[in-house]
């Protein structure tokens, strides 16, 4: 994208500026999705990443189908429960993040109105 700036020196001067920082437009949203997920997946110890919709149906995943479906179903219910717990205590509050630490790994759930992002990490060195 080229920016045309008027420096006020006269029409003769043309300063062509370097294209600005990357803001990929509406044309490639899936590349962005892929890129984000890849970035998350490349963190140390991450076993799997998945994106689940509001009903618990997986959209994107890096694990195999059966595991994904299991995680999606269970964590979706748990997130709903957690959210309702938080809101019951204080209706103006809302759940922002859910972390479950177990012996073997840590499950991180980032909830949203419509989607859920689930990441499983093995934190032990």
């Amino acid at each position, binding site marked *: 994208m080229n920016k045309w700036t008027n420096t006020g020196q006269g029409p003769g001067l043309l300063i062509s500026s370097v294209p600005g920082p990357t803001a990929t437009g509406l044309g490639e*949203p899936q590349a962005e999705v892929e890129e984000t997920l890849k970035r*998350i997946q490349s963190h140390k110890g991450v076993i799997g990443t998945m994106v689940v919709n509001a009903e618990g149906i997986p959209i*994107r995943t890096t694990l195999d189908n059966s595991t994904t479906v299991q995680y999606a179903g269970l964590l979706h219910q748990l997130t709903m429960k957690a959210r309702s717990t938080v809101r019951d205590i204080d209706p103006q509050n809302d759940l922002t993040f859910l972390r479950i630490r177990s012996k073997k790994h840590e499950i991180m759930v*980032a909830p949203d109105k419509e989607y859920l992002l689930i990441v499983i990490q093995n934190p032990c060195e």
Partner: protein
Amino acid sequence: MAPKQKQKKKSSRGKKSPKPILAGHPEIYPLVLTTKTQEIFNCRIDEDVTDEQPYKLINKEDIFEDLRNRAAVSDFHPVKKIVQEYPGNELLLVYDKDFKYGLNFYLIGTEEGKENYLNITYMISQKRIEFGAPVKFSDQNASSVKDAYIECTAYPDKNFTLKQLEKDVGMQVIPQIKDISTQTEWTYPKNATIQYYPREFSEEEKETLKQSRPLVDFLNNASISVEIALQQNEIMNTFIDDWKYLAEEEGTFGDKTDTHLKEYQSFTDLHSPTEKMITCISWHPTIYGLIAVSVAVRLSFEDRVYFSGKLLLQPSLILFWSFSDPIHPQLMLESPDDIFCFKFCPSDPNIIAGGCINGQIVLWDITAHADRIENIKAGGSRSKKATLKPMFLLEPESNKEAMYIRHCAVSSIESGHKKVITDIHWLSDTFEINRMGSVFENRSGICCQLVTCSADCTICFWDIRPQKPLTPQTTEKKKEESIEIPFDVPSTFLHLDLSWKPLSKIRLSKGETSLDHCPTRISLNEDHKTLTQSKTVKAGEMNPYHNLESGMANLLKPIDDFCTKFFVGTEDGEVIYTDWKMEKDPETGRHMPKKPVSIHTIHDGTVHTIQRSPFYNDIILTVGGWNVAIWKEGVMTGPLLQSCCAPKMYTSGHWSLTRPGVFYIGREDGYIDIWDLLEKTHEPAQSQNICITMITYIKPWIFSAKQQFIAIADYYGTLHILEIPWTLSRPSTNEMTSVNYYFEREVKHLEYVEQRKNIREQEKKEMELEMEKKKIKTYQKSKEQMEAELKMDYESYLELEKTVLINLGLLKVTEKGSYMDVV
């Protein structure tokens, strides 16, 4: 003449008018009627006059007629007068059956009597006083007095029965109903399992969703917090329990500072006249406290030849020692010659195979004595003084403590090894091999094959099952059958005795030269677990070793990708990694053993120990000469660890059975070096003196979690049993991973060294080339080149001048143009 019957109701004296003949009846006149008379008057007895009707009425006229006819003869003659006077017309004649009145008939003379007779009257009399007296009535049971009542029983009278011929009946039809009830358990269906499948999006839906804006926004927002969380975990594990990880282990069982091996017991054979040395040790796999050693005379080859006559008289033995009896061995196995190595069969500890100095393999079967050695009680020694008698004078029966057991079978002398057998191993019971060296599944479930290596540069594979003879050899069989076998020797391996040939032979040749490698030890890639788990054969079942032929007929399945390579240590200090599988030599068409994969000469002396670690199947310890080396199978570049030369020669070695990084090395001065790879790798961690002479064999053994022993044999024939202290037997918590890590590091180090070597090679080459080039250059430097060089130098000087002038401001810089124009 009518009879009067008196009937008295009460017991009262009634009037009785006695009469001499007639009992008060003057009108009765007895008569005798003859048969003729009876016929005339029709009063024949039993025909006209019967018991029912004993009377007959007779006309007076008839009687008168009879009287006229027969006058005096007539029977009525005595009563003629009465008849005449009779008023009536008919007289009653009664048949007197019972002769009551004296004669068989009687006539009743009066009308009145006739009436009375025909109509019987009763006369009842009673005492006058009793007339009019008040009557006393009393009750009486009707059935108590006989005939006190008269009953009229009903009886069916056929006259009065009516047969109903018509009946008016009404009918109503109803359904048949039955009421039944039962009590049951109510089983109702309950959901046991639910089969379901999850809802999923199809691929297109996923794609459309991916492109939707909300998803992108969500991900951008969510990934921030997720990444923070991920990073937090990477930085620090907040949930770790530092206190717990600080501690090494729980309570220790002994003094932690005590690291010495403690002397427990020692065994020496006092009976042997010559000096012996121990060549091989083996603990009994199942019985606690039983250890077997093989002894050989301590003579050099020349001495052996010199004293061969004397040596023949002394049997070579394997002695079984038990902890409970340090003076007398429990069992003594005889063999034709000195044994240099032997092993218990892993699947049946009663079978022992040993290799002799003359190249024969000897097999023993001590099943018959198994119960003897299992129940060894302490304090069994009878004779306190040691009787030092030469062995050939000892009778087997008199020595009640130990028994001589003759060997069961020996291998064939011609087709076996020609020199001393240096190592013998049982092949694992999971596989078996055939003549070509191909590996098959072992269906018989027992160890049935052996591998030996000998100083005649061959490695042989043997099978203890009876071989099917390829060609009928009847004559040779007969010859062998004539050999008599003592009766107390079990016949388990009778089929092998003296005719046992190896399955296949591999010659370790050094290529073109005639000198071959002389193997001293071999180490196969086998499962070590079979050695500690020995399947005890139950008494009722057939011992598979007594029925060896049964497993032969099975068709065997070949095992693919089985590693047929193994390590061999030689007399010259080389460690060879070779393959036992035969391949077909293209030139000659015969089956030849493959060439060794790698040969390394590391040790300066005979390699007398090659051993796989009990923890890692691919880590091998080799001890020989003055140093120790640790190898990893697969890494062919060199040993992972090679120790520097020790001051004293190493003569034996063994891994520790419980600690992965510890091994024991025996020296020639009687010291034992204990190496701990996690402590120090350049020298032993500990050194301890055991005896005064060379240590010939080391063998540790685990008895329980708390008790571990190590058996050390020395050159003078003494077997020392020492107890391993707690520190040396108990591994630390991360020892296995640490040692693993150490080996991996070493492997990487080796790889790095290789790489560096390659790089160095390359660099070296490059350097050499450059040197060459330079030499060439300086050599052929011609005049033109020198001039060109000078010109170059001058030009560079000019440039330098220009830049200096410009910097000083003495020359103007033009925007366009190059420096070349200026020059």
